[in-house]
């Protein structure tokens, strides 16, 4: 395997890691007003992802940085071309990140409800727009001979891409629900259990439509297999949720995300960003990648660092493995010094 191919796979892995991890963070955020009917429930929900959301978000930064280092042309075309959607994602991630840290720091219902809104919007917007962005990448967008995107903003809001956005929103929400079912007890857990089935079924329908559309367009044996496995995995997650095997349900919603992303990257290969203007202008693994030397340097760094990162992130999840519920909340609401003591 050429090093550039290896980096194509590695970037797929980074996006899988990002969507697996921040996917449930987003899901928890989207479900905040749905499940969190009381302040206690909302705090339980936010604290399930409290210790890990920031580390999860780094997967995005690394995916972006790795794309810059390994495929500069891809990074340049994608980020300058998808300008406004990325701006919206940035704004969403900014208000969401700040909201986690700041919402408990004033003892006022109005203050907290504003930050709750920030968490909701900050989770909803990227959940949809990541799907829109990836659907557009896979489908192909207008790119000229210089590798410059020429399509404008509204070209990105085509039906296929919007359906992609619905699918990622559904997948992340379902994944967030299985995560909450796994990490909480009491009322939050009960409501999460209920929602996995409902949201999961709707998502399954959207996902089958979207993957079917993708396959009819440019399907191959491999992507048929991964798509079918993705659908099976999602249905398996719903089944496990019904019998309250929370761990398995969570693993399977995560696997569904991984398989869906895999399908998209397999469809993309050997392109990284096909041009709908002229296939001759396609950005490919070959013409968008860095030099073999840079790829070699980055391969060493990735091979050494990735296992270390995986170990300490896994350890973090182990440290905070316990379920939490509204009964566990400290009696006094929001006096951060006393609760974190």
């Amino acid at each position, binding site marked *: 395997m050429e090093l550039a191919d290896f980096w194509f796979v590695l970037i797929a892995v980074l996006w899988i890691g990002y969507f697996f991890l921040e996917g449930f963070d987003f899901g928890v955020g989207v479900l905040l007003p749905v499940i969190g009917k009381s302040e206690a429930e909302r705090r339980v929900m936010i604290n399930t992802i409290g210790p890990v959301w920031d580390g999860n978000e780094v997967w995005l930064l690394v995916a972006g940085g790795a794309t810059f280092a390994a495929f500069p042309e891809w990074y340049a075309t994608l980020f300058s071309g998808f300008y406004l959607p990325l701006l919206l994602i940035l704004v969403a991630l900014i208000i969401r*990140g700040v909201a986690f840290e700041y919402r408990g720091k004033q003892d006022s219902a109005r203050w907290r409800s504003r930050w709750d809104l920030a968490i909701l919007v900050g989770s909803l917007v990227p959940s949809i727009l990541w799907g829109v962005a990836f659907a557009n990448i896979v489908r192909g967008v207008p790119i000229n001979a210089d590798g410059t995107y020429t399509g404008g903003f509204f070209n990105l809001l085509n039906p296929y891409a919007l359906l992609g956005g619905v699918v990622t929103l559904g997948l992340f929400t379902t994944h967030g629900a299985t995560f909450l079912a796994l990490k909480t007890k009491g009322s939050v857990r009960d409501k999460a259990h209920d929602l996995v089935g409902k949201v999961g079924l709707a998502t399954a329908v959207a996902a089958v439509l979207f993957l079917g559309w993708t396959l009819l367009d440019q399907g191959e044996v491999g992507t048929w297999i991964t798509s079918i496995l993705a659908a099976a995995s999602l249905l398996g997650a719903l089944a496990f949720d019904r019998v309250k095997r929370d761990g398995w349900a969570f693993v399977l919603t995560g696997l569904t995300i991984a398989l869906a992303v895999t399908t998209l990257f397999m469809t993309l290969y050997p392109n990284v960003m096909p041009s709908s203007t002229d296939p001759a202008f396609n950005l490919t693994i070959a013409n968008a990648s860095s030099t073999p030397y840079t790829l070699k*340097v980055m391969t060493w760094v990735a091979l050494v660092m*990735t296992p270390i990162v995986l170990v*300490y992130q896994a350890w973090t999840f182990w440290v905070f493995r316990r379920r939490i519920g509204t009964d566990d909340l400290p009696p006094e609401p929001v006096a951060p010094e006393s609760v974190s003591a």
Partner: protein
Amino acid sequence: MDALELARWQFAIITIYHFLMVPITLGLAMLVAGLQTAWYRTGKDVYLRATKFWGKLFLINFAMGVVTGIVQEFQFGMNWSEYSRFVGDIFGAPLAMEGLVAFFLESTFLGLWIFGWDRLPKKLHLATIWAAAIGTSISAFFILAANSWMQHPVGYRVDEGFSPLNPTGRAELTNIFDVLLQKTALITFAHTLTAAFVTAGSLMLGVSLWHLVRQRHLDVMRPSMKLGAWTIIIAFVGVAVTGHFQAQVMTEQQPMKMAAAEAVYETGRDVGFSLFSIGTLDGSEETFRLEIPGLASFLATDSFNGEVEGINDIQAGLEEQFGPADYSPNIPISYWSFRFMIGWGALAALVAALSLIGFRGGRNPTSRWIGTLGVVTIFLPLLANSFGWLFTEMARQPWVVYGLQLTANGVSLATSPGEVWTSMIVLTLLYGALAVVEVALMVKYIKLGPPEITSADADRAYDDRDNDQPLTFAY
């Protein structure tokens, strides 16, 4: 304004804003880790309370640093796609390394630190804040190596006969160690890190003074004041020494920048360092100039009689090398930002020294103006840092990568002025609103003072971790 000018404004606004938080994070992470180490070693309540108090301010600031940092990584591609295409083979590597080596470390371990107070054994919990602090410093190293490459590109190749005025192909990496370990990168890292300690020290000093003159929380604020003041003084010596070396490296690598810093048009020996001058803004004519003789020569060459090349000669040399174009930066901005950087930084050091004298041997002045001076001091290094970056980036113009790529050739082709306007307005308004929120929260927690907890509380919480406290509810 065209897309180029807008993109430059946007870069300046969001980068300077981001760099208000960064040095506080860099310095305060280490200081908090130091305080927690003191608690671990001595078991004294006062260190635990200090750790909690400064740790809270650290976290409020860190949250903003993190979220504004995401924009930093994205904007190279969004606004500067042609720059990204041209340098990606080299510039992308330190950015990716920063993520893999540093961001994961700081974010993951900071999460463990915030939520781990009564989940982790004391020693392990202490290790998490050190890991996070080290992560932030490693992150600074990689991003400064990337920036240093823009100041002084090394370890790369371009097409034979390459001309930056009429560029072809791209710059390709030939040696990563040249990029990461060139002296420009190492000295810039040292200068930035020491400046970060001045910044964090000033926050500590300023807040402590504010409390001390009101006779509040003396047990925590006296040691904090001393820690802050000594941090500033020691770090300021580091800033000055590294700044001197940086000026020399700059004279050698970017003579135009040094000449612009001094607004020296004609080459000469024994060039003075003017404290300020009155005349035309760009210094081409002046009516009054207060200067320290020979200091500019000394800064640049180690000798008071050293030769400093003037703007006109350098311009002629660059025209010969690259072809006809204007190679000089905006002289008034270069000249004044250089002075403001040094001036505001030095003032912070002066306040630190005076505080140590004023509060020596148990003295505790209560004049309110000292508290006000303390609050002002918090902002001095922030100004110095901002002007430092303004100088570093503005005085490199018209280059984005010195001698390789003109800034005008780096801007995105796909984006319209309307799009850049949109993002600039949206981000500026958002950043402005968040600044109000952050400052309000900072003020609230500063006024609240250190929490009333004891080491016994902390021990009990840890012992109870499996019973009634299954997880820290930090949010």
